[in-house]
Structure formats: C-alpha cells, structure tokens
C-alpha cells in the first residue's frame, strides 16, 4: 500500500486524507498537537458527497511519522513557509506535491529540500465541521503536473491514486495552462468576494460587478498571453458556470476576512500582479484589489 502524508489539514487536506485513507496508508502532519491527538483517537470522518471514516496516524513532528512516498502539502498558503521548515531534512526519498491556490506555492518547499516536486491545483471544496469531521461539497477535480525532477508519468500515478480514492483528478504534462486559468479565476473571484462580502453568486456574472469581474479576467488573460501560457479554460466562463451551480460558494478569502484571518492574497492576486509587472503588462484593477485586500487585513487591528 502506498504511504501518503498530508501536511496541513484544513478543508482540502482533510478531504484528501479522508479519501486517500481508503486506498493508502495515510499519515497527517498537523500544526496543533490537539488536532493530531484527536485524529489519532477518532480518525477522520468525511460526510456529504461521500462518507468514510479514515484511520490516520497524525503528529506535529515529521520525525514521529514513518517515511511516506508522497507528501501532499495542503496547508493554507500563508502557512507554506512554516510547513516547509518543518519538512526540511526529512523524507529525502519522498515526492512532494503542493496544492495551494495561486502561483509560487512550490518555491518555499523547493528552497527547503531536494525532493522531486509535483504541483497541483484543486477545485474541490468542503466545510470543516471539526478537527475530525469534514463535509465534501463540490466534487470538482484536482489537476496535477510535474514541477521539478518529476515526469508526466509521476503526475499520472498520483492522479490515478486520487481517483482510486473516489475523488476527481487529472494529470497534465504542463500544469501551467490549468494553473493560470485557476489563478486568474481565484485572483478575481476571491478578492471581489472578500471586499464585497458577497458569496460567489449571480452578482459576479451580470451588472456592474459582472463588468468588473470581466475586466479583471481580461487583465489576467493579457498577463497569461505575455507569459506565453495558453489558458486551459476561459476564467470568465469558469466564473459564469460556477455562479450557476445553484448554491453560492463562499470563497476562502471571504471566510478569512470575516474571521479576520490573514488571507492568501499574496499567493493569488499578489502573484498575478508581480508576474504582470515583470512582464510589463498593466493590471490597474488587480493592483487596486490587491491593495484594498492588504489594507483590509491591516484594519483587523482597528
């Protein structure tokens, strides 16, 4: 049986651990020791679109876990540096895969070790009801591609494993077309949701806010063109489709600002704005949203 370690168990990490526990030997690296204890005692329960309870071995220190073949870093973007530091010096034979929103999640990991790296983006979503219970809500896919010292075949093996666990996944020879589609989608939708308080609903596809979303997507597309990335999907169409699913999704960045937590703005809109700047593409609207969300984070202390 394959040994997989999930590093970081928020919604996405919990969904992965809960499902992969059916087909692999799953260990979990948590940030808090109570979380590790609860998982060791109770396992991880998945409800919603699937229902499982997975037995997992959890710890805060990688030294307490057996060496995995695959590590999936599923922490929030804001915790990447911390997780990378904890993984440093461990599990040199493992392949490590990042699955955060935005661009550049691979870099802090790559800087802390020589592991072969895969990169992934995921569209699945859920709600975390407790440390040991996650509800699986959107059964959309995870996209995987090679990043460093890995091959398309490595990406396919991981996609197959995830599919065998009952989740959706697809491997790509080059992840960038998919990653950039999602980057533009998230940079637009997450920031607009965080600033307006609106869940991702019909307002994003029509009227004045729809016009703004369209203009933001256009800036993103211009940046992708300058980066010679051919988008896999049109982010505007992804947006329109997502608003028609019948229930309104609460983007994580909206949940973050409502709970006054740091957001992933740096890895998402920040990454897009920096890429655009490097490529000489003007992105005044994304720049404005980036500054507004950063300022909103600064207001938590008011």
């Amino acid at each position, binding site marked *: 049986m394959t040994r997989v370690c999930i590093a970081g168990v928020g919604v996405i990490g919990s969904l992965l651990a809960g499902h992969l526990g059916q087909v692999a030997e799953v260990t979990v690296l948590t940030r808090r020791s109570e979380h590790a204890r609860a998982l060791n005692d109770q396992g991880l329960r998945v409800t919603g679109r699937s229902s499982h309870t997975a037995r997992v071995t959890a710890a805060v220190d990688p030294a307490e876990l057996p060496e995995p073949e695959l590590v999936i870093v599923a922490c929030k973007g804001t915790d990447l540096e911390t997780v990378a530091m904890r993984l440093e010096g461990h599990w040199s034979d493992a392949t490590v895969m990042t699955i955060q929103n935005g661009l550049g999640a691979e870099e802090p990991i790559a800087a802390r070790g020589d592991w072969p790296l895969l990169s992934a983006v995921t569209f699945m979503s859920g709600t975390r009801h407790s440390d040991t219970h996650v509800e699986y809500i959107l059964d959309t896919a995870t996209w995987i591609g090679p990043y460093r010292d890995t091959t398309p075949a490595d990406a396919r093996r991981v996609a197959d494993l995830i599919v065998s666990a009952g989740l959706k996944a697809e491997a790509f020879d080059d992840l960038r077309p998919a990653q950039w589609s999602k980057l533009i989608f998230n940079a637009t939708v997450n920031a607009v949701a965080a600033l307006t308080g609106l869940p991702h609903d019909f307002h994003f596809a029509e009227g004045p806010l729809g016009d703004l979303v369209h203009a933001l997507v256009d800036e993103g597309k211009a940046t992708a063109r300058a980066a010679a990335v051919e988008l896999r999907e049109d982010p505007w169409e992804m947006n329109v489709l997502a608003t028609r699913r019948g229930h309104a999704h609460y983007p994580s960045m909206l949940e973050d600002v409502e709970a006054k937590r740091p957001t992933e703005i740096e890895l998402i809109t920040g990454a897009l704005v920096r890429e655009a700047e490097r490529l000489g593409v003007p992105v*005044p609207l994304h720049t404005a949203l980036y500054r507004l969300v950063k300022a909103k984070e600064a*207001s938590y202390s*008011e």
Partner: protein
Amino acid sequence: MRICIVGCGAVGSLFAANLAQLDDVEVWAYDASREHVDAINARGLRLTGAGEVVGRLRATTDAHELPPCDFGIVATKAMHTEAAIRAAAHAFRGGSVATVQNGLGNEETLAGHVERVIRGTTFPAGKILEPGHVQWDVKGDTTLGPYEPQPAPVEAIERLADACTRGGMPTNAVHDARGPQWRKVIFNASTNPIGALTGLTHGRVCERPDLRALVSGLVDEGKAVAAAQGIVLDADPEELIDHAARPEVAYGHKASMLQDVEARRATEVDYLNGGIVRFGLEHRVPTPLNEAIWALVKGVEESWQQ
C-alpha cells in the same frame, strides 16, 4: 422671505436653526422623521458644539402643509432627493431651490420638478444627537451658483447667500459653482469608499503608500472628467486629502460611507463614484478605477440582502 429646508438631517438642521435667527426670514422644515419634527415644533431646533443656537421654526412630515416659499434648501441624502422634491415641489412654484447635498446629479433631479435651481456645495458638518438636537461638528463655507440649464436669477442666489451669511452660515454666491462642487466630490469619491471597503480611518488610508497611490488614481480620473467639462477646481483635492490626514484634523475620522457600511445603510456611492463615471461617459473620459470602486461598494450593499 420664506425658506423651506427639505431634509432636516444634520446639515439641513445647521441651515434651519441658523436661518431661524433672522427676523426677516420665516423657516420651515420638511423631514421624514416624525420624532425629529415633533421635537422641533415642541422645543425648537437646538445646535450645540461649534455654535450654540436654538432656532424656532415650523417643521412637518407632510409636504402638503408647506406654504409657498421663496427658497428651498435641499439637504437630504442624495438617494432621497427625487421623492422629497416630488412631494415638496408645489411650494417652490414661484421660488428657487438650492441643493447643498453631496455628490453629482442632485441638480438634475431637482430640475425635473422645479423651474429654478441653484447648484450648491457646503462644508459644515454635524450629527443628530437626539430628535430636535444636532451636534455642530465643523463650521465651513457654502458656495451657491446657478444650475446652468435651469438657473435661478443671480439676484435670487445673492439674496439667499446673504441670508445664510447673516444667519451664521458663511455663503458665497458665484457665477460658476462647479469648481467647489467637483473638488468636494473628487475628495469624497477618492477617499470615502476606500475607507468603506477596507475599514480604515482617513489617516490610516493615507499613511499606506500603496493605498494612497490608489486614492491618487481615483483623484486623477475625477480631475480629468472635471477638466473635460471646463471646470476649474477651486483647490487641489490631493492637498485637502493630505491635510485631512493630519492627526489634528481628521486622522481618526471614519468616512461617512464607512459609517454607513458598518450600520448597513445605503451609501451615496451612486452620486460620488457613480456620478464621476456617468459624467466621464458623457465626456468620453475613461474612469476605470471609479467604475471598479463603484461596483465594489454596490456589491457590499447587495451583500446585505443575502
């Protein structure tokens, strides 16, 4: 001379109570708040703070009670202009009506119901403490001038300005009142929604260089739209913005739009950024940042319906 204040909130009350000090002026107030109107009729309208004044005037919630007036001074929030002037227009058949409201487009709305319109901008501010009692926070000047497509006679504008000044509200009558109006609109449109969207006070918005640069981007668009109409601003909004950010001025001030958002009240964004966008379209000046900010604040308002 008979003057009716239409919308006797904080700013309307400053005009009403001060004008009521004059022997030659009879002041009426038309307002939607029953409590405020009853208190004014029972005990007068009291101002405290920057000036201590009690004004004796007639207040009503029923526009039918209004007698014919020489002047109207409209001081409602911009989104209530249409309903207020539709109800009160009969009182101004022989008179002139001035707006001292925030934003762009109020004159156009008034002109749909009354014949002679006065464009106005006012800087004094206050807040209602309780029915019949208003805190006067800041003194300041008012500028009145003709609304060009349907102007009030110069002589009438001067009479009204003179009455306001004598009553304690310094007011200038000018030929072109668009400069002060656009200066104030650009100031408000470039700072209020930034406070509303981020939750930061005016001073904290200005001390973040990246956010201050966004404010300047909004100011530049507003200036371009003003310039395209041949409007000469009477002061640079940038300097006023920096001045207001000083600790002894308004560093800790929460923009009225932030207060509106925190209380989940409709904002005046349609008349600020929305107004700049509309005039920009008309004069072919692109205003993408004002458009974006307008859409975001409308989105905030929509989110309360969820």
